[in-house]
């Protein structure tokens, strides 16, 4: 593979007019490819205690999903809350409705779940079974909430729509409730909200937390979700549900993603406390100063070239932040560019004009490294392979469980650490090449 040729197929950020068409993959043959929305739906239902996930799909879809849940305590392991209706040739021809209803009856008899998410996959969606109607019927028959979640992968690019659709489907369970001073947290996929800075700040300010969707709540918490004063949306996937709740219950929402720029984090805190009608806690001042100090230390990152892969952060917000630190984005792998990214896109363009490509295709990246010669790689890759090319990985997974100024502090520290590591790798590499050093 020729790295130059691969890059020639890509557009630069300034050339992207229609993200759906202009963001190309590096190759047509991908490995490993993106995750599917079925997995996304599973990630969401995992965190909802008392709810079952019933997959309607091929043996293969069911197998891989169950396989993923088997060692999870949240799911209840092998005997847990992930079950399936596996479809065969007969079901493809005559439809899956009857089999689903039979399986549902068995599930009700054996487990009596409080709620069930019926998650469809590619094939039932192609053959066109009406799972919204099936869910409705089952819900009426068994007097429990039954939600249809559509997860056909050929209509979307990755797993995130699956998470989004599962949590949005939860709206069906919500009931009118008197308003209190609590907040719901919508869209946290990784980690426990109780471990975040945002949770500590809210707790210290006397603000109780209600439903946490999908990172840990019960069916009862979802039923009561409309009692919250504010919804805190910590990822785009929470926006459709937040909008529905605003429309039906009048619940306002604040967008509070894993921002890496202290300025953005401060704005999110200000919005949140304004909606809550509670004064900004004093401790936020100190948290902000700490984050800004960490960012100031990152001033040494001027000119460091990087490739951005898949991290828990907002892709363009994080790249925009790094661009303001003087770092050089060379290639950004993304799922797409949203309207909300426009300000960050401009920040990046002011510093550089990186190539843009789709995520989850690491095989051809090896040839790109030789061409672009980045110092840092953000995301999941094989560390040893990167080291041989003089590149250090910026580990960001722990950031998945953070919210607030802690994200900025952590991210700045990771960037500084990885840049030092890259320098060490390259020093050792040069020494080895000149025959006087140790082997990498």
């Amino acid at each position, binding site marked *: 593979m020729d790295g130059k040729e691969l890059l020639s197929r890509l557009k630069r950020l300034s050339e992207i007019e229609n993200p759906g068409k202009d963001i190309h993959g590096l190759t047509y043959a*991908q490995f490993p*490819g993106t995750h599917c929305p079925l997995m996304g739906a599973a990630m969401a239902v995992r965190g909802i205690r008392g709810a079952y996930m019933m997959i309607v799909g*091929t043996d293969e879809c069911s*197998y891989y999903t169950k*396989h993923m849940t088997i060692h999870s305590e949240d799911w209840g392991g092998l*005997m847990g809350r992930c079950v399936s209706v596996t479809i065969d040739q007969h079901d493809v021809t005559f439809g899956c409705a009857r089999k689903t209803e*039979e399986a549902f009856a068995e599930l009700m008899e054996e487990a009596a779940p409080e709620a069930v998410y019926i998650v469809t996959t*590619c094939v039932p969606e192609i053959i066109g079974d009406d799972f919204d109607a099936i869910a409705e019927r089952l819900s009426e028959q068994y007097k429990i909430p039954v939600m249809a979640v559509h997860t056909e992968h*050929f209509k979307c690019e990755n797993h995130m729509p699956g998470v989004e659709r599962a949590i949005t489907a939860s709206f069906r369970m919500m009931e009118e409730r008197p308003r209190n001073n609590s907040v719901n947290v919508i869209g946290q996929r990784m980690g426990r909200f109780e471990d975040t800075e945002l949770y500590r700040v809210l707790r210290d300010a006397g603000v109780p937390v209600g439903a946490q969707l999908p990172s840990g709540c019960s069916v009862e918490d979802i039923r009561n979700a409309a009692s919250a004063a504010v919804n805190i949306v910590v990822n785009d996937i929470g926006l459709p549900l937040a909008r529905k709740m605003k429309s039906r219950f009048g619940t306002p929402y604040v967008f509070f993603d894993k921002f890496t720029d202290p300025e953005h984090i401060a704005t999110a805190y200000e919005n949140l406390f304004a909606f809550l009608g509670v004064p900004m806690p004093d401790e936020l001042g100190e948290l902000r100063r700490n984050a800004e100090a960490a960012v100031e230390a990152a001033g040494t990152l001027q000119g460091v070239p990087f490739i951005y892969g898949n991290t828990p952060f907002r892709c363009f917000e994080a790249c925009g932040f790094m661009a303001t630190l003087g770092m050089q984005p060379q290639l950004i792998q993304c799922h797409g560019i949203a309207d909300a990214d426009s300000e960050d896109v401009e920040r990046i363009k002011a510093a550089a004009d990186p190539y843009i490509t789709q995520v989850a295709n690491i095989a051809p990246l090896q040839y790109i490294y030789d061409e672009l010669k980045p110092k840092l790689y953000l995301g999941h890759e094989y560390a040893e392979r990167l080291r041989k090319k003089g590149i250090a990985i910026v580990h960001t997974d722990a950031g998945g469980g953070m919210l607030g100024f802690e994200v900025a502090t952590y991210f700045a520290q990771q960037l500084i650490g990885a840049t030092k590591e890259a320098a060490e790798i390259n020093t050792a590499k040069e020494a080895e090449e000149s025959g006087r050093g140790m082997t990498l």
Partner: protein
Amino acid sequence: MSLTRFLPVPSDRMGILWTLLNIEGSVIVEYGPAGTTHFSMGLYGELGIEQENRLFTTHMREEDVIMGDTTRLEKAILEVDENYSPKVIFVVASSCSAVIGTDLRGVCTMVQPKTKAKLVAFEQGGFRGDYSFGLKAAYDLIAGTLAAGGAEHRPGTYNILGASSGAYRCKADVLEIQRLMTEAFSMKCLCAMCLETSVEALEAMTGADINLVIRREALPAARMMEEKFGIPYIYGVPYGYRGTSDWLAVIGEKLGRIVNPKVVGELKRKTMSLMQYRMYSRMFRRDTMKAYLYGEYETVSGLSQFLSDMGIRAAHRISAHSLAPLELREGAEEITHTESEKQRIDILRGLERTLVLADDTAGRLISNTNTFVRISTPLIDGSQVATHMPLVGPRGADMIREYVDSYLNTLR
């Protein structure tokens, strides 16, 4: 009986994939949504199968599903051919492409003149049955396209047909068979279809003296090679001491070779040592010695025979996969298969003081009065790392015997 609570039986497509992923020098291009490929990494990693640079997906968008446009696939094939230079590209359908009826063979025929690699299409999308159907289809097509004859005759060699990396202890079993063949006949294995093999090894298969078929799914491939290239075959798996001895005798007879007397003597000694177990059955006042077996057809068949040599009755013999692709003759031994998970659960929950040879799911479901031995995938409680602990041959029999001894301690 429509609810699946645990892991479903893997589909034909999954069986095809874990077979093809074992062939070095080949690449798989899946025509379907990328998520399935990514999701599969967990299982195939657990089976010890490398995927990087062996498996690619094209992904599939709505317009591909609606319009049936295969441009994406054609370009992916050309790209893989140019970038990785494999000898063979297996083009594998997904459930989506199978349902919409994509003509993968047609695409391969059209693209073939532009590629150096041989293109082989698998149109199974997971709807033709379980993995047993997939294995049969894979063995048929691999033998039909790669073992095409013209290979140099290599005297003193054999092939193993029917190795499936989805089967528990498959690698250890293949190594044990190879050890037995070396010790008994000083013969060398040319190719194990399909376990850690290569396109070259598959192409060289027709140079062997004999094919050893260890799964019924590989019988059509063996027959084809006998008819076309005159390579004889035997079907059987060496479970237990007597079973191993008989298996070697059949091979010896087929090849006109004498089994190494030292090997025969050792197996005879071990077979004799089982006589004591039959006496135990008369010593228990409360219990009877009985077993539940669940696994690959040949494993259930072979191990139940071995247990019978020890006086243990196989009360339940259940194949983990469909029996339909196995071409069983009427009156063949009674091994059943049920697609109903519920039936299996009911049987397992009713077992008491039974030797349960099965998969980890069964291990979780039975009461603690039973003795559990894992002989089948899927793996849930642990892993398989050791390659010196087979289920077949005298080594496998020794291991099973140790479990039997533990089991007997639980009986009164």
